[in-house]
């Protein structure tokens, strides 16, 4: 519940959303001054999702952002200078200029995996992170984001299904912002709620008003807790709208004007400011203080970025392979004896086949009167929609045949 957030935390959410927006506004100006290398994507109007979901993570948790998740990076501890320098391709950027935009990460302390451009690829990667974390005894959760369009990729499907089978601690946030580049969601995915897809993986899901940062936070918090408890992946669909073109070069003329107007009124920061005021959680002075702090920080980091050098050309030749530059070490939080012989020969719950298939469960009428109910006539097709249109969470369809009670660690039974 939102009540569980302290005043400070409430203000934190505002801080990050506003920081996200002001940072991006500055980058638009820098883009117009040709100081940004390559494209610039905007998360205008979607700040509540990035910030609300990432705020539900703990420091030990892992995440991987997509192009519109600068807010999540900030919440997870990245600094505006990271974003500025990445976009300006500077030597001081986290990737030293080798990659741009939000394509950076931090394995050691912030636990961030860098995305790649190919949509959907992060899903199995973060599933792997979650499974590895469980194996190491770390009790971490892995979170990543994907767009409505990204759910069409094959790798999204493979990753979600694998995560579901493994009951990996993975939170997948689907940002349904109505568009994938120029393609409206209805031409991308022929269903109303993307969260429907969770059912096809037998996992829990929630649909949430993406422009309500508190609702987003709450759904994410629930999802993270569920994951951490070992209950498997959760998919959160956050409804929102992409308020700018796909990137700076795109005037988005294909978006109906009225649609933009409608969603402008739903601005997540505006709505949240009103809430904070009504709830007496701040006053003008406090707001001014935060805003001033943000400007200060941004001034400083923008200056840092602008004054930073570009990388030296020789860098291009370096680093294809890791030749001893990294020490690779797993952080064990359980005794390694548990996973080394002879103690690791543990049995797995739920592998053995206890039933013989589902023939008994389906209507096997006598052959003579075989009467498979006919396909619904086409004009009744859309009536049968049983989509849960509420903001809320549905339990997945997983049928736990065999298992006595939901195991915390789905791979272990008895023994250790």
């Amino acid at each position: 519940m939102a009540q569980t957030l302290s005043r400070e935390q409430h203000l934190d959410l505002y801080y990050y959303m506003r920081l996200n927006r002001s940072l991006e506004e500055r980058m638009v100006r820098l883009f117009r001054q040709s100081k940004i290398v390559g494209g610039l994507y905007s998360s205008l109007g979607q700040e509540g999702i990035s910030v609300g979901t990432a705020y539900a993570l703990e420091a030990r948790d892992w995440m991987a952002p997509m192009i519109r998740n600068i807010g999540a990076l900030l919440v997870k501890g990245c600094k505006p200078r990271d974003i500025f320098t990445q976009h300006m391709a500077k030597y001081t950027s986290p990737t030293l200029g080798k990659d741009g935009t939000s394509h950076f990460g931090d394995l050691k302390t912030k636990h961030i995996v860098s995305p790649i451009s190919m949509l959907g690829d992060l899903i199995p990667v973060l599933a792997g992170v979650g499974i590895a974390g469980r194996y190491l005894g770390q009790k971490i959760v892995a979170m990543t984001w994907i767009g409505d369009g990204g759910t069409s990729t094959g790798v999204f499907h493979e990753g979600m299904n694998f995560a579901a089978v493994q009951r990996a601690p993975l939170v997948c946030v689907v940002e349904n912002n109505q568009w994938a580049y120029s393609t409206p969601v209805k031409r991308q995915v022929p269903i109303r709620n993307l969260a429907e897809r969770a059912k096809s993986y037998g996992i829990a899901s929630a649909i949430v008003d993406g422009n309500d940062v508190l609702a987003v936070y709450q759904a994410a918090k629930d999802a993270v807790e569920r994951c951490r408890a070992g209950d498997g992946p959760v998919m959160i669909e956050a409804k929102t709208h992409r308020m700018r073109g796909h990137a700076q070069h795109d005037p988005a003329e294909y978006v109906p004007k009225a649609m933009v107007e409608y969603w402008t009124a739903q601005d997540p920061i505006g709505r949240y400011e009103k809430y904070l005021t009504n709830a007496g959680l701040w006053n003008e002075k406090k707001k001014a203080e935060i805003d001033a702090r943000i400007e200060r920080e941004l001034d400083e980091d923008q200056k840092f970025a602008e004054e930073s050098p570009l990388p030296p050309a020789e860098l291009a030749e370096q680093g294809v392979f890791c030749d001893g530059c990294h020490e690779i070490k797993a952080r064990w939080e359980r005794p390694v004896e548990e996973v080394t012989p002879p103690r690791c020969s543990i049995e797995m719950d739920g592998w053995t086949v206890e039933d013989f298939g589902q023939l008994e469960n389906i209507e096997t009428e006598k052959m003579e009167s075989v009467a498979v109910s006919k396909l619904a006539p086409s004009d009744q097709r859309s009536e049968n929609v049983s989509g849960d249109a509420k903001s809320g969470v549905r339990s997945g369809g997983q049928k736990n045949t065999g298992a006595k009670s939901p195991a915390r660690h789905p791979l272990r039974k008895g023994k250790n």
Partner: protein
Amino acid sequence: MAAVTMVEAIRQALSEEMERDPAVVLIGEDISVYGGAFKVTEGLLNKFGWERVIDTPISESAIIGAAVGMSYMGLRPVAEMQFIDFLACAFNQMTNFVAKSHYRWGAPVPMVVRGPSGGGVHGGPFHSANPEMYYAHTPGLKVVYPSTPYDAKGLLKSAIRDNNPVLFLEHKFLYRRIKEELPEGEYTVPLGKAIVRREGADLTIISYAAMMHTSLEAAEKLAAEGISAEVIDLRTLMPLDKETILASVKKTSKLLIVHEDTRTGGIAGEIAAMVCENAFEDLDGPIQRVTSLDTPVPYSPPLEERFLPGVPDVMRAARELAQY
């Protein structure tokens, strides 16, 4: 006729072929209302309608798969990859379904896969791919990589009419940077034929796509130094025009290959081996390569500049070879 860009030349090829043959359809992401990420298909929706300019979800394997299916029905689909980098997501369909179809069971696949390729525009590691060798190395595919608007139009028309799957690479650096007047009437440029862009006597430079322009510029400057370089534009990488290559090597006795693809496993190696096999005695010096680095394509301008071969790199190698 006004000079046109490569984008416009490609659009003309698509439009003319669609007019000529109702079996030609387009399929890809954001190609209809939006006209494609690089606006190559702009206006074609209005001309040819929704059934022939088919927008898809973000599903490269479905795009390639559906295109194969369409081609089995006698259509000639032209599939667009928003960036050619994303063809990696349909690699299995391309190399296993598409490429092997005719050989395995005699089912021709008259389709074209096209998309923006190459670097030099700070696209970074995922928007700068030169994937030609993945596909040239796959028996059953043809690979085209033009360097001029004229060739782009003529080769795309040939590709569409070809009964085999053709990967048609469009260098995005060239999309709008060069213009050329095109002939009034209809014309095609045959697949599998290289062209000598510049005659020369001292050495042969083989290149294609953006690097063809780099090579030509280097050749001009070399001429000022008294080195006469012949420049060959491959245009089609698979099938390779061995005749044109060998004829030139026999004439100049020295060969330099320039490509933007990464070095190891690039087409320069293939050409070197082919020339060794067929014209070893004609060689008066070691075959040389000027290529990109064996790294991903870096993002920051100074890094990408170091990554890509430049005119000075070509000149240096050519000078050395000429003096050999």
